[in-house]
């Protein structure tokens, strides 16, 4: 099961500058394990304590995986996985 993974600018130092890489797996978790085997350290940028890192958005085709089962999202041959930085922040000041 081979999928294409689109890598954002901030993670390209991990992928030797590659914008698009391929990985194998039947779930997103397996694909991330494979990515980390190919590009050491990439897994830690995507997953923290067993869950998708809050600093990234991951999509399978047109769906945000937060709404499709997270790391357990199943993948089919030829699926397009897109990683984007979560664009977020804010003053964080309450009251």
């Amino acid at each position, binding site marked *: 099961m081979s999928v294409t993974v689109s890598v954002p600018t901030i993670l390209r130092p991990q992928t030797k500058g590659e914008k698009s890489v391929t990985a194998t797996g039947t779930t997103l978790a397996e694909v991330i394990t494979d990515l980390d085997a190919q590009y050491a350290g990439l897994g830690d940028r995507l997953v923290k304590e067993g869950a998708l890192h809050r600093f990234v958005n991951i999509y399978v085709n047109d769906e945000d995986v937060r709404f499709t089962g997270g790391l357990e999202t199943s993948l089919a041959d030829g699926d397009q996985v897109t990683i984007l*930085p979560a664009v977020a922040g804010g003053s964080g000041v309450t009251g």
Partner: protein
Amino acid sequence: MLTIPAAMVDAIVSHARADHPDEACGIIAGPAGSDTPTRVIPMTNAERSPTFYRFDSLEQLKLYRELDERDEEVVVVYHSHTATEAYPSRTDIAYAGEPQAHYVLVSTREPATHEFRSYRIVDGVVTEEDVEISRSTAS
């Protein structure tokens, strides 16, 4: 330094005022590698919050695909602080994921005046930079 046309500053400040007291957010796109802001694109703050913002994730996916197709990139990421100064918070720094971008903060805490400041945020390090507002429409 960020060089930005006055009309774009006005558009961002108007967006921030319109969404006040919630934080407003968006980007300015430009040709990849040019460091030149050309298109202001207001984004939905999915949090609709006075203290937090997050781009709607599907709107963001659509935007990033469009930028790719047009050979553009994010030149500026902007958002407003509505009760505090225009300086990156710890949350802003933690999330900053566009190393090539200028991070613009607008403060709307004062009704009659605004602060408009720009920063680089790379690997958790904040560096404020000058903002040059260009009046000319020529590029």
